[in-house]
C-alpha cells in the first residue's frame, strides 16, 4: 500500500498560523475589502458633489450607466484599445522571445535589454511618450511633421489611440517576453531536432510544435494582459491624452476616475467600478479554472 505523503506543516498552537497571515489579511481588508465595499455601497446611492446628502436609489446608477451613450462609447474604446494593445505586445514579445531563444548565448545581454521598459512606472512611460510625441515639442513629433505627416494627437483621435496603444504595449512587452522566453526554454531542444529530422522547416516547427506547447503560457499572458489593458493603463492615458480628444481614448478605467473625481458623479463612478470589479473577478475565475487543467497535454 502506498503511503500518502502529507506535506502540511502542523502547528502545535492552532492560533499561530492565523497570526502569520494576519498582516496580509489586514492589508487586504484595509486596501481592498473596505474600498470595495464602499464602492458597492456608493453605487446604489445618489450623492451630491459635496457629500452632504445621499439617497438610496436602488440600481438606478447602473441603469443610467448602461443607457449612457458615453459609457457605451467608452466600452468600445476600451475594447479597441485592449485588443490592439494585447495583440501588439503579445506578438512583438513572442517574436523577440523566439529570437532570443535562438541566440541563447548572447541572451543575457539581450534579456536585460528587453526587461528595461518593465522597470519604468506607467505614468513615467506616459510622460516619456508624451515628451517624444508632444505635437509642440516632442522630438518624434517634430520628425514626423518634417516628414510630411500631420502629427497632432490632441486633435486626431486615431493618432491619440495609436499613441496610447503603442505606449501601453511597449510597457508590457518586457513582461510578456520573459514568460514567453521561459516557455520557449522549457521546450526540450530534442523535440525540435526530432521535428527537423522528421522534415519540418522552421515555420512548420513553430506552428506544429512550439506554438501548441506554448499555449498555456500564451493563455496565462492573455489573461494578465487583459487585466493590464483594462486596469493598469490608467497612468499612461492620464499622462498622455487625458482620455481625449473627444473621448477617443477614454477607456473604462479612465472614465471611472474622470467621472468620479473630475465630474464628481460619485454614484455613477462607483457603479462603473463595480462593473470593472465584476470583470476582474470573472477573468480571475477563468484563469484559475484554466490553470487547474493546464497540464493539458
Amino acid at each position, binding site marked *: 500500500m502506498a503511503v500518502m505523503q502529507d506535506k502540511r506543516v502542523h502547528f502545535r498552537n492552532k492560533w499561530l498560523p492565523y497570526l502569520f497571515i494576519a498582516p496580509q489579511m489586514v492589508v487586504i481588508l484595509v486596501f481592498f475589502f473596505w474600498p470595495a465595499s464602499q464602492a458597492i455601497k456608493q453605487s446604489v446611492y445618489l450623492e451630491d458633489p459635496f457629500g452632504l446628502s445621499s439617497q438610496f436609489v436602488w440600481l438606478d446608477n447602473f441603469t443610467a450607466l448602461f443607457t449612457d451613450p458615453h459609457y457605451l462609447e467608452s466600452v468600445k474604446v476600451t475594447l479597441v484599445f485592449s485588443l490592439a494593445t494585447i495583440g501588439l505586445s503579445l506578438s512583438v514579445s513572442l517574436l523577440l522571445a523566439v529570437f532570443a531563444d535562438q541566440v541563447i548565448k548572447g541572451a543575457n545581454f539581450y534579456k536585460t535589454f528587453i526587461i528595461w521598459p518593465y522597470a519604468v512606472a506607467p505614468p513615467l512611460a506616459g510622460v516619456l511618450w508624451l515628451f517624444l510625441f508632444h505635437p509642440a515639442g516632442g522630438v518624434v513629433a517634430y520628425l514626423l511633421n518634417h516628414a510630411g505627416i500631420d502629427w497632432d494627437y490632441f486633435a486626431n483621435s486615431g493618432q491619440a489611440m495609436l499613441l496610447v496603444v503603442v505606449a501601453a504595449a511597449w510597457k508590457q512587452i518586457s513582461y510578456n517576453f520573459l514568460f514567453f522566453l521561459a516557455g520557449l526554454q522549457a521546450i*526540450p531542444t*530534442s*523535440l525540435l*531536432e*526530432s*521535428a*527537423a*529530422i*522528421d*522534415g*519540418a*522547416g522552421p515555420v*512548420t516547427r513553430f506552428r*506544429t*510544435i512550439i506554438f*501548441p*506547447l506554448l499555449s498555456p503560457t500564451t493563455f496565462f499572458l492573455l489573461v494578465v494582459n487583459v487585466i493590464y489593458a483594462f486596469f493598469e493603463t490608467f497612468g499612461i492615458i492620464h499622462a498622455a491624452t487625458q482620455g481625449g480628444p473627444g473621448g477617443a481614448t477614454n477607456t473604462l478605467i479612465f472614465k471611472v476616475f474622470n467621472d468620479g473625481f473630475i465630474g464628481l458623479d460619485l454614484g455613477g463612478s462607483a457603479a462603473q467600478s463595480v462593473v470593472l470589479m465584476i470583470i476582474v473577478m470573472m477573468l480571475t475565475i477563468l484563469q484559475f479554472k484554466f490553470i487547474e487543467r493546464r497540464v*493539458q*497535454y
Partner: protein
Amino acid sequence: MAEIKLEEVRKSYGPAEVVHGVDLTIPDGEFLVLVGPSGCGKSTILRMIAGLETVTSGRISIDRRIVNRLEPKDRDIAMVFQNYALYPHMSVYQNMAYGLKVRGVHKADIHNRVNEAAVTLGLGEYLDRKPRALSGGQRQRVAMGRALVRNPKAFLFDEPLSNLDAKLRNQMRVELKQLHARLKNTFVYVTHDQVEAMTLGQRIMVLRDGNVEQVGTPDEIYNQPASTFVAGFIGAPSMNILSGSVDGDAIRFAGKAGLVHAGSLPGREVKIGVRPEHLCLRKEGEGDYCQVRAKVALIEPLGGDTVVHCRLNGGSDENIIIRVHPDEKVGENETAILYFKADTLHLFDAETQRRINGVQVCAG
C-alpha cells in the same frame, strides 16, 4: 538503404576540438555501434551525421552524396533520441504520422504505414494515447515507430535503451537486433554500454576523447584489442593489465614469473593483458601454462560464476581479477596459484599503449 562515409571529420566548439579526425565507412545495411566512455564524442559524431551539428572540417556523405551542408530533413535519415523526444501534445498515432504528414504523404498511405508499424511494435491499442500515459518501454517503441514509418536510408540511435530498466533493456536489445535483420537498413547506434555494443554491432567503433581507438567486428575487438584502452573497456570484468619488463628474450612480471618471447619488442617495458576468464585456479589438461601467486582479497559470487579479486605476490602491488566456476573452493585471505595459458595473453607497448602483434610468447 545507404552507405555512410566519414572522411577526416573534425568538430570544434570554439577553440576546443572534441572530435579529432574520424575516418569511417559504414557499408549499406551494416549495424555499426559507436561505443566509448562519457564525453568521448559519440553523440557529436552521430549528430553530425544527422545534420544537427555542423562539421568543422572533413566530409560526411550518405549514399555517395556529400551532406555537409544539407539540412537534417533533406538527409533522409531517422533518429531515436535517448529521451525519446516524443511530441507531448500529440497522440501516439500523431507522433508516428508527423514525419509523413509534414512531408505531404497521402492520408490513406499514412494510415497504412502507421498501423503497420504499430502492429510490428505492439502499439496497436495505444494509438490514441498521449505519450505521458505510456510506460518508458512503450515510449521507446513509439520513438522507434516514428523512425520506422518513414523508411529512411539510415537509422541513428543515441543511447535509446539507457532509460529503461535492465530487464526491458535486454528485451529491447533483442528486438532491435531482429528489427535490423528484417529491415536491413543501415543502423548507427551510440552506446556507452559494452554489452550492447558487443551484442548488437556487426562492427564496433571504439572512441576515446574524440579519437578512434579501434574499428572492428565484436570478435576482433574482444580477441585482438588494439590498445590497453580497448582491452579494458570491452569485457566485464575488465582485462587485467600487468606491467612487465623485458630482459633479453625474457619478460618478467608479477615478481618473478616469466615469459619467453620470440620476436623484437619495441622497448624495455611492456603491458601484459589477460582476461579474467582465462585465469584459473588449476591446470586443466595439458598446455603451456604460466603461473602467478596471489592473495585472495575479495570474493564476489554472481551466481553463474564467481569473481575473485586478488593481490599479486612479489611486491608489485598489482591487483588481478579472475572469474571462476562457483563450485571452486577458495577463501578470502588464502594464497592461491593462478594459471593461464601463454597463448591467451595480450602484449601491449607500455609507452604507446598499443597492441604488439607478431610476437610469440611461451611460459618460461
